[in-house]
């Protein structure tokens, strides 16, 4: 099987800054990592390859610094990495991002070989939209499923299991297909230096800009994005009483909590009901 896995290079911090003029994310000075949920997707792809043969290709649309992220997953055992990078791709929303990813997958099919499966993480930690998998499937016209926990190729099809809120479902997908992997479904394997060295010797990383992809600039980046961030505001604070107590003992604390709740206009009714007396 040839499996393509999409990874995103995301800021590893909750302190993300914005350009208030363009509403876009300022990444400078913020250390980045591979989106943790994508490492789970990489593990899922590697398990398939280890069991059934073939190769795993990681792709990412990102600034050049994301080569580090590709090196990381190559260290886990991914066979090759493709960085898709170009200034015209900047500022893309999920529609424009998936457009580029889908075309990169098409290019892989033309130049490297038939792709059986495209694998994505459940969502990213910086935007957590969970859009890219479905949107890439839509551009490619491939069937897809989210929250996948297991997969097994059988007779040219893929049997997948996935868990929703209240059910476990098993599907048979025609290939090629797209799956997004459930984020807690497995533990990513560690990076091994030997993998990094072998990959460096054998197949260097590939970099594609829009020169190679040849996409209409109106369909990519900010221009290819139907959504526009009009402004950024702060989340309004919820008003709270903020009464703070430093008790002398646990007993003291327990009494204070109970007394406070019994006197609280929102909590007292339910607490009295719980305590059993309709006082």
């Amino acid at each position, binding site marked *: 099987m040839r499996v393509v896995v999409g990874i995103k290079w995301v800021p590893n911090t909750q302190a993300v800054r914005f350009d208030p003029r363009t509403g876009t994310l300022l990444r400078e000075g913020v250390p980045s990592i591979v989106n943790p949920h994508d490492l789970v997707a990489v593990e899922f792809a590697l398990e398939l390859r280890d069991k059934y043969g073939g190769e795993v290709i990681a792709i990412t649309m990102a600034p050049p610094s994301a080569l580090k992220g590709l090196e990381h997953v190559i260290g886990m055992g991914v066979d090759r990495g493709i960085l898709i990078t170009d200034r015209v791709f900047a500022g893309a929303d999920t529609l424009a991002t998936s457009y580029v990813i889908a075309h990169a997958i098409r290019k892989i099919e033309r130049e490297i070989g038939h792709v059986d499966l495209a694998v994505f993480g459940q969502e990213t930690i910086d*935007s957590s939209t969970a859009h890219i998998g479905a949107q890439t499937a839509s551009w490619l016209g491939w069937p897809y499923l989210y929250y996948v926990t297991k997969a097994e190729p059988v007779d040219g099809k893929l049997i997948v299991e996935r868990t929703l809120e209240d059910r476990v479902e098993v599907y048979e997908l025609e290939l090629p297909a797209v799956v997004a992997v459930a984020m807690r479904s497995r533990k990513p394997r560690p990076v091994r230096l030997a993998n990094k060295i072998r990959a460096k010797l054998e197949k260097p990383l590939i970099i594609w800009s829009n020169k190679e992809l040849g996409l209409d600039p109106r369909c990519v980046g900010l221009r290819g994005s139907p959504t526009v961030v009009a402004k950024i505001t702060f989340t309004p604070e919820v008003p709270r009483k*903020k009464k703070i107590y430093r008790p002398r003992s646990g007993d003291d604390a327990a009494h*204070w*909590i109970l007394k406070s709740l019994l006197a609280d206009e929102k909590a007292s009714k339910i607490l009295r009901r719980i305590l059993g007396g309709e006082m």
Partner: protein
Amino acid sequence: MNTGPDCGKLCPEWSCIDPREYRGVWVVAEVDEDGIKEASLQMMTPALKIASNLGEEVTGVLVGYGVERYSEELIAHGASRVIVVDDPRLSTYYPDVYAKVVASLAEKFKSRVILVAATMRGREMAPYIANTLRTGITADCTDFDVDPETREVVMIRPPFGAIMLAHIKTPTRRPQIGTARPNVFPVPPRDESRRGEVVRVNLEDIPKPSARLVSVRKIPREEVPIEKAEVIVSGGKGVGGPEGFKLLERLAQLLGGVVAGSRKAVDAGWLPPERQVGQTGKTVKPVIYIAVGISGAAQHMFGVREAGVIVAINTDPNAPIFRQADYGVIADYREVIPRLIELLESAKGSNRRSNLGT
């Protein structure tokens, strides 16, 4: 974009549309064998708000087989019209098939806004609808607004850690699509007397699925889901382990509530993922939320914005939770919770006795 479309400037993969021709706010309802999802009914609340700001109406959309009977439910909750595609070919849910059906309806009726509850199926299907229509989609909205000048609908979501809100517009494309997580909005009041129109649509072409559902197994969920609980005792990293959670469980039982926790508690394996509160967990609205050993990160607190009263127990006086709680106790929970349990037990006991006496 009030001067009409200039499609030459737009991606040629997008069909040329005039945004001004699009009207109405749609809610795509999710139905399974247990009926219509509460999360879908919750979407009627923002839909009604947007529609009234625009002076337009709300349409419910039902896609599936045997789904027409839920039309009244949508009308009773505020829909003026329900569009139904009820077809045996849609008896099984496949995200791409359902999405294409919804997209074809949106093209036919030219809807302005489509809202979908961000249940797991909703999160899976909504971006495919958007992509089929080559339009914008905003995930996990927490609010919606209408620009009074341009009449554009603004979708508001907290990206990058719940501290900030992005206000997102879709100037050139329609419909605009938005999702919201379950429990972010309440179900609007049910009014049996409401009347609405039911429009049945027969589609000749329904795409054939390239997938086949092989089997379904329901997961028995015996406990009260945290989003339904009136009292939540929530534990974080500071609880330290499963032993501590047993203590929280006892407290929760006494209070008729349930135990939930932070992501760190879930990541540590002390709690199952469906008990996680927060931006990537669940939004809860208990009357009383007791946060034990939780620092109060923005992503966590995002899930308890609607809580009635927040009690915090934390050893660190500088923990951010104290700036976001109603009653904060600076103490080790291992000293406080056992005493609280004793106190509640004796209070319950004495109330029972005094009730017997009357």
